[in-house]
């Protein structure tokens, strides 16, 4: 046995502990949500979801994600690209900014937006004079979500871009490729799986975000509620069946995202030749899967 190696029983014990903790703290509660949702039967759960306010919350969640995920994908890519490929004053600062949302409580993020855009806020009077409502409306929800989910794409592609260095891009440049072509044909293909994984994580968080969104939403039923907020409202009103059903739907979305992400990681891990078609097919299946929960709605 190697001197630096722990005894086998010790490793087995640690692994067992980790798995047990995982099951107990993560899997069990999740399973409980699904059990609770289906406890009164499929029809009850279905009816709870088809309730107009719930449908409105689902719609709002989808709209917010559909706006903020693409924006953060582009923004995150740009930030990662600047940090990985260029030297400029303020690079450190940009890196800190990218990670800021991870270290600041989402509630504070929400509050900041209220302080800036709210009626009593810095820009409040100016916005009100022009009839623009940010807080307690869709723009506020999108802003809060953008803030919270900004790091996901940037952080997942950054290490890969840094690893890649500039050699491949320089090679393409000497072959006559323009800046945009280099990005499209060299930079992007190199990070595509990490990018997709980042987008999926970003999407999962965008749909699941509670804290920041809660502050700016105002909880107007049927209007500014998102799924997580709606779960809380239903729960506070003792509508446990409805709360569990919406929660289960939300959890399902998260699970599908996770599965999709790990499939992507597997695929990018073994870059098998000729398998180019397979990931794309997988992707279609995965994106189809993401939409599946809404098909019944």
């Amino acid at each position, binding site marked *: 046995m190697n001197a630096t190696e722990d005894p086998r029983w010790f490793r087995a014990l640690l692994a067992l502990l980790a798995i047990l903790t995982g099951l107990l703290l993560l899997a069990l509660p999740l399973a409980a949500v699904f059990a609770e949702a289906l406890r009164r039967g499929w029809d009850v759960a279905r009816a709870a979801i088809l309730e107009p306010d719930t449908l409105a919350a689902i719609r709002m969640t989808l709209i917010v994600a559909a706006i903020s995920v693409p924006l953060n994908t582009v923004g995150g890519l740009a930030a990662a690209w600047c940090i990985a490929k260029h030297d400029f004053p303020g690079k450190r600062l940009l890196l800190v900014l990218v990670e800021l949302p991870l270290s600041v409580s989402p509630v504070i993020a929400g509050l900041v937006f209220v302080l800036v855009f709210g009626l009593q806020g810095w820009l409040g009077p100016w916005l009100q004079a022009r009839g623009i409502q940010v807080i307690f409306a869709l723009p506020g929800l999108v802003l809060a979500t953008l803030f919270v989910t900004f790091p996901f794409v940037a952080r997942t592609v950054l290490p890969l871009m840094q690893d890649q260095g500039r*050699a491949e891009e320089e*090679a393409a440049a*000497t*072959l*006559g490729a323009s800046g945009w072509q280099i990005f499209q044909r060299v930079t992007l293909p190199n990070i595509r799986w990490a990018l997709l994984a980042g987008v999926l994580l970003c999407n999962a968080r965008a749909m699941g975000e509670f804290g920041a969104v809660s502050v700016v939403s105002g909880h107007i039923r049927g209007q500014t509620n998102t799924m997580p907020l709606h779960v809380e409202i239903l729960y506070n009103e003792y509508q446990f069946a409805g709360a569990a059903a919406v929660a289960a739907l939300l959890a399902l979305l998260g699970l599908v995202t996770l599965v999709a992400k790990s499939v992507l990681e597997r695929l990018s891990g073994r870059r098998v030749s000729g398998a180019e078609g397979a990931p794309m097919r997988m992707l279609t299946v995965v994106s189809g899967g993401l939409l599946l929960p809404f098909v019944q709605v």
Partner: protein
Amino acid sequence: MVSGARLEVRGVSHAFALEKRALPVLQAIDFIAEPGDFVALLGPSGCGKSTLLRLVAGLEPPSEGQLLVDGVPITGTDPSRTIMFQDPTLFPWRTVRGNAQLGPEARGSLAANAARIEAALSLVGLDAFAEAYPHQLSGGMAQRASLARALVNEPRILMLDEPLGKLDSLTRLAMQRELVSLWQRERFTALLVTHDVEEALLLADRVLVLSDRPARIRADIRVETPRPRRRDDAGLVALREEILALLGLAQAA
């Protein structure tokens, strides 16, 4: 037929910024390569040979001095000046053919160059591996793929950064012969970086011997021996001793 370009390197010095300190790499490099010249650059490891090629490729502007192609200053990269890098730097998600065709693809002339791409692949002996991915190639095959990728662009100046470094000695001999006949056919101006004095003498018209970092030109040696050359040619053997002495590696024997 595209012919070689005239390369003028005028008083070029270059330094890298290293931890707030400047690291001088090239110092007052001055030479002219006439169209169709085959110039070899010899020098100790880390002296700045690859850096000089980067400047000619237009990947970086020199700290001082000027580089001109046919009298026009180099301001950036151009497919007429292609470089075969020291590391093959192939694109791992593209097949060998996909790698070779990136240049024409980027310039939108893929169809017009189809035959040229196949010719380049067969020239480097990779026609059977056109559909292989870089990770399925040996080190030498990867270098040959990288050479094919450079050749496809009909360069007027072809820079080769230790192109045969990873090849076994037999393939190396064959590739040296291929390089010479390729250059004789296409008449591009060639800049070859190598560690191998014999290789420089077999291939080049002219050998520039560089000093330790920062690199200066220590000697500019003409090789007049007609081709095909034999490595045991008396004139070449004498030149070899001279160059080794310049590099501080003279044998006692």
